[in-house]
């Protein structure tokens, strides 16, 4: 790496060393800004994955063998008890599934009646979280499925309780999931009770999301369920995301703030489900066309709806717009039950 007896052994050669330091510092800063501003470095990162991935597998290896040994040593009786519990679980779940099938048929008939497009069935891949810790600032985990299993960057990831995050970088045998709580992550959401649409930002804290741009008179209460809105075309609409923890309306600020507790907890369960991306760019195109049409209609009609509740007069109009806008997004999927049980 460094030649023995280089000039470092003799005189200080301070000027040369300082200029080399400056060179490397500049290089690092350029790299960081490229990585931060644009995603130009992605290509480099992806190819570096070829080197880094085996290392990560190496780290995980002792844990995996440990787990396998533990399984081998587990008592016969314990396994039997577990099998019984699982069988009970299966019976319960398949009963649920029956009801669901009935609903599905009914839904399909209704859809035919209203001449709507068929619902897309969402495929999914089960994955396990690898035991590798990444840096404490970014909330990311590594899972044991990758390009080989057909994953691509951007796919939503759920656990049994709710949305967890989306795929960030996909390697050959593993993929990195960026969690909802990552400070870089923003998620288009909808409040289940009121239908209000907004964006949930990661807070950088475990188990906390933030809503920061709510109007002061927003109708939001602790305990409200927050779902994905399906806007943005990455996440299917209607996935459970979080429960509202607290709402504050700080005096002297323009917006109210709310704190959410995510339902999906990757720190509790090790098994995740990677869902297919539902809407491609064409759907987004369709959505925007639909929205423009809705806007035009709205302008033509000019209905005086303000008398309903004068206090909320400002937010009602965009809300109504959103209602019409949301229809295709909500129609596309209702994926959580089918996704979980497959």
């Amino acid at each position, binding site marked *: 790496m460094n030649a023995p007896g280089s000039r470092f052994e003799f005189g200080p050669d301070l000027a040369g060393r300082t200029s080399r*330091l400056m060179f490397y510092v500049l290089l*690092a800063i350029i790299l*960081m800004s490229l990585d931060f501003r644009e995603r130009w470095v992605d290509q480099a990162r992806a190819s570096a994955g070829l080197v880094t991935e085996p290392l990560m597998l190496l780290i995980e290896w002792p844990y995996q063998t440990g787990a396998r040994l533990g399984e081998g040593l587990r008592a016969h009786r314990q396994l039997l008890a577990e099998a019984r519990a699982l069988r009970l679980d299966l019976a319960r779940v398949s009963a649920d599934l029956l009801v669901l099938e009935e609903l599905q048929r009914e839904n399909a008939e209704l859809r035919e009646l209203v001449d709507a497009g068929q619902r897309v069935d969402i495929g999914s891949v089960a994955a396990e979280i690898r035991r590798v810790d*990444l840096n404490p*600032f970014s909330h990311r985990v590594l899972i044991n499925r990758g390009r080989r299993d057909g994953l691509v960057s951007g796919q939503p990831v759920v656990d049994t309780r709710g949305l967890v995050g989306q795929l960030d970088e996909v390697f050959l045998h593993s993929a990195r999931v960026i969690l909802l709580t990552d400070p870089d992550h923003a998620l288009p959401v909808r409040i289940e009770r009121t239908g209000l649409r907004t964006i949930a930002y990661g807070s950088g804290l475990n188990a906390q999301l933030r809503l920061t741009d709510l109007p002061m008179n927003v109708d939001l209460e602790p305990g409200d369920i927050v779902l994905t809105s399906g806007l943005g075309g990455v996440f299917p609409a209607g996935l459970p995301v979080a429960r509202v923890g607290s709402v504050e309306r700080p005096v002297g600020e323009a917006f109210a703030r709310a704190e959410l507790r995510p339902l999906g907890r990757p720190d509790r369960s090790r098994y995740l489900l990677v869902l297919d991306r539902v809407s491609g760019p064409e759907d987004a195109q369709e959505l925007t066309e639909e929205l423009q049409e809705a806007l035009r209609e709205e302008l033509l009609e000019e209905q005086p709806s303000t008398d309903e509740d004068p206090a909320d007069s400002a937010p009602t109009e965009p809300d109504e717009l959103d209602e019409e806008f949301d229809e295709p997004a909500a129609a596309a999927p209702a994926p959580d039950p089918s996704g979980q049980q497959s």
Partner: protein
Amino acid sequence: MSARDSDQVLLLVSLAAALLLTLMPMPEALQAARPHWLVLVIIYWNLEGGRMRLLGPCFLLGLMLDLLSGTLLGLHALALVILCYLLERFRARIRFFPPWQQAAVVLALLVNDRIIHLWVVGLAGEGWPHWSWWLSPLISVALWPWLFLLLDALRRRQRVRKSP
């Protein structure tokens, strides 16, 4: 020359081990306070082994760590290059410090490393880290003497085995 060759193997092994230890799973509460293994190993090799004295290898190692841990590409590289520069600048003095003073220097270097991280993370607009993040230099310094003794013993043993 053979001593240097045997050192080479140990150097590479210890650097790889440091990288792996950095990614090792730890309990949630201790995650932010994980010791900075790579910095400790680099400091040891610079002071005692007379290796890792150029900025280039430090930069590459930093990039490697960035890629592995998924941080902003260049963050660890920047911190390690600055560390390497400071170490090289004051090497002659640090080498002849008594052990406790050497440990103090190591602590200072580690805190400096954290400050560089904080600066970049602040510029990137991420939040202030959990307070336990500042425990990491203290834990690292507590590990420093043991790492020092371990690597010294390994090096000596390898040299003895090679020499006859």
